[in-house]
């Protein structure tokens, strides 16, 4: 497995890769270069195109355009298996091994040492033990993989990949569920592999870790390559700007459209609200006619805050008040009853019911709120659907179409309509503009402003800082699952947000998720 590649030749070379899903352009002419023996971080927010890039390179998705070379030779794997044969192995955050099989079987599945048609269990275990020992792991390889920590599972997956003579190793969020000590072990292994000449592409949203381990950094945003730098020469603020912001000049002009800051009535407030291991206790006041933006990197606790506020997750401490009265938010039903609405980030799995029509999707929350015995008549449903299809310009304007057939932007509008139909007092929008084409993007931002002008209270999560700045009256910045800064009025600008996100978290070690 030891090969000495020509240092002049990049190990993995990706040129001009494009990939569209329907109208959404997930990747546009992306380049990526991985040298032998380097650890190369691939960064970007959700939807930036990291996973799509990985899947295109490893043949999980077919590509629309572009080429992939390994060691100078062009390859076009059609499946993950073919990619592995070409020397590219991927280890995902959700470890792609079989937790019900023993560690040894996982390492040698379908290539066990055999004699007379019988697996040589002893030999297989011996080899498994020897292989894992190279990675500093001394465990009982006969035990089921699932009985070990995620860290051990990751190392096993890496060991399997390397043993299958992978030259390129792609690690997708390998540290997301590891504790500090486990991360150290993993990093040790990564450095050791790099010394052997293996090229490692490393996806992570923990910037501290990226600075600790990587040699170079490639940043994607909205499916485009925005920069490839040496880690040592890329300051943290600059990196975050690459990931989140566009040019500052552009955003300050857009900011002018936000109305002047007035003190308004409080709609909902949260005091010391939080959940252990989920998001640290926070104070948050949401007022009528005001947009509060939640900014922060992926994994900083934005979605977690949104789910607590809505009631999709139960808080284990603190008080919640709606219009001044204390309330208990134990389930989405509670949230809905108190006039909250929540458009989740994962539209397909958590938002729409693909098979049902636009009309049925729109009336769903209202109907759930009214209860079983107060059904909306077909006429009322048609009326509501017609009103919102027109108001939000849902296209095609056919309320009887299964919502799964609509484009992402229109699905998002259907979800907005679902909540607007309940006449909410507070709407929580998690990445409302993600995966939506440019036209619909602008429309949704306009809508957010309009809704706010109508007196609605909005809590909006977005990774697009310039976007968040255009509509937010206040911005709460999160880092490491805690609210760290609240900006209001004149202070709301991209620079301040970036500074708050990038503020050196030296004291705040990444403990990862429990």
């Amino acid at each position: 497995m030891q090969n000495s590649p020509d240092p002049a030749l990049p190990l993995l070379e990706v040129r001009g890769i494009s990939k569209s899903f329907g109208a959404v352009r997930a990747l546009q002419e992306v380049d990526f270069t991985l040298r032998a023996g380097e650890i190369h971080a691939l960064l970007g927010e959700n939807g930036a195109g990291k996973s799509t890039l990985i899947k295109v390179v490893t043949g999980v998705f077919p590509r629309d355009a572009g080429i992939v070379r390994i060691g100078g030779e062009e390859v076009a794997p059609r499946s993950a298996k073919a990619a592995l044969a070409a020397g590219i192995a991927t280890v995902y955050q959700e470890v792609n091994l079989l937790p019900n099989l023993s560690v040894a079987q996982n390492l040698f599945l379908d290539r066990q040492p055999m004699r007379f048609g019988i697996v040589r269990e002893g030999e297989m275990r011996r080899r498994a033990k020897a292989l894992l020992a190279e990675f500093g792991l001394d465990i009982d390889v006969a035990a089921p993989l699932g009985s070990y920590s995620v860290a051990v599972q990751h190392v096993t997956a890496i060991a399997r990949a390397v043993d299958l003579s992978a030259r390129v190793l792609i690690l997708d969020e390998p540290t997301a569920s590891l504790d500090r000590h486990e991360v150290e072990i993993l990093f040790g292994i990564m450095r050791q592999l790099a010394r052997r000449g293996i090229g490692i592409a490393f996806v992570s949203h923990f910037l501290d870790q990226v600075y600790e381990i990587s040699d170079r950094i490639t940043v994607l945003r909205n499916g485009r390559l925005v920069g490839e730098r040496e880690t040592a020469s890329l300051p943290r603020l600059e990196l975050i700007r690459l990931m989140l912001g566009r040019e500052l000049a552009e955003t300050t002009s857009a900011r002018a459209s936000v109305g002047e800051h007035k003190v308004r009535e409080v709609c909902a407030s949260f005091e010391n609200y939080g959940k252990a291991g989920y998001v640290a206790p926070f104070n948050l006041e949401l007022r009528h006619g005001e947009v509060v933006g939640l900014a922060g990197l992926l994994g900083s606790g934005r979605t977690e805050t949104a789910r607590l506020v809505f009631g999709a997750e139960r808080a284990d401490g603190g008080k919640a008040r709606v219009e001044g009265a204390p309330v208990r938010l134990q389930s989405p039903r509670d949230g809905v009853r108190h006039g909250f609405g929540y458009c989740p980030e994962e539209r397909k799995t958590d938002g729409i019911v693909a098979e049902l029509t636009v009309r049925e999707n729109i009336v769903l929350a209202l109907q759930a709120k009214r209860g079983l015995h107060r059904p909306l008549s077909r006429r009322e449903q048609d009326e509501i659907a017609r009103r919102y299809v027109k108001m939000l310009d849902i296209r095609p304007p056919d309320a009887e179409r299964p919502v799964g057939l609509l484009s992402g932007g229109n699905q998002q509008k259907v979800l907005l309509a679902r909540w607007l139909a309940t006449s909410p007092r507070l709407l929580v929008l998690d990445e409302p503009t993600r995966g939506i084409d440019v036209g619909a993007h602008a429309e949704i931002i306009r809508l957010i402003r309009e809704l706010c002008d109508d007196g609605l209270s909005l809590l909006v999560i977005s990774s697009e800082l310039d976007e968040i700045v255009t509509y937010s009256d206040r911005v709460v910045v999160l880092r490491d699952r805690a609210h760290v800064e609240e900006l209001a009025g004149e202070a709301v600008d991209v620079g301040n947000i970036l500074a708050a996100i990038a503020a050196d978290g030296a004291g705040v070690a990444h403990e990862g998720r429990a």
Partner: protein
Amino acid sequence: MRGLPPALITAIVLVAGFAACAVQFPNIASTRVVGNLLTDNAFLGIVAAGMTFVIISGGIDLSVGSVIGFTTVFVALAIERWGMPPLVAFVAVLALSAAFGAAMGAVIHVFDLPPFIVTLAGMFLARGASFLLSTESIPITAPIYSTVSDFALRLPGGGRLTAIAIIMLAIVTGGALLLHLTRFGANVYALGGSRTTASLMGVAVGKMTVKIYMLSSLLAGIAGIVFSFYTSAGYSLSAVGVELDTIAAVVIGGTLLTGGQGSVIGTFLGVLIQGLIQTYINFDGTLSSWWTKIATGILLFAFIALQQGLVALARRPLAKSAGAAT
């Protein structure tokens, strides 16, 4: 650390149950009763061994009872009416069964359909086919049948280990070896863990699916032949509902109905537990046979609930960072 393996729990239940029965009816603890228990449940043990493979791989096979019924009718007709030599009839019916299973496996894989409904169709098909062959009970008088029926190993204490019990024990042993010692066996577990992941790791999922259902139907065919030895007849209504007993035995034997975990030995113990309940009821005399079903249902619930609990526990990694050190 990882708790008791489910099959061990089954073994404990069996031993405890057997001891309890023996306290009440000392006669139960005799080789004669045990020998009969093995003979009476021989066909069940064979078909359950096949079902274990299917269920561990994440599937289910509802057609096995019908395949048994078809086999008995086919064998009886072939020997008695068509004048086939018994061994030729056996080979022919086993080839048919295997092909039948392979076809079901192929449909499940190629059209990506739920195994439950495909094998349901297979159940109708096989039962219907046996009705078409004959709706009467056909006695089998071939000499090989009396020879096999008469053959038995004498056990100390007056028990008899009959030929069909021996066949069952051989198949259970062979099944256990196949499952635990071969690449095929490892792949069965892999499929039950996750078909997608198994495929990514290089397992030929389609071929495996075909082979697994083929194995299950083949063993159902053998069970059918054994059943015809047991009753010396072929009848299209024989073994109605056996798929349920089989699934129950597999689950009570500690195999996860959702796939990925289990053992042939556990299944064998599950079959014995069902046989023991039956034996107890026979000995008691006042209890009626329906208590078998109720007791089986209660055991099913207990084991499924237990597994549900174990699975919930397993979601939390137990041996966190065990031994990891650099």
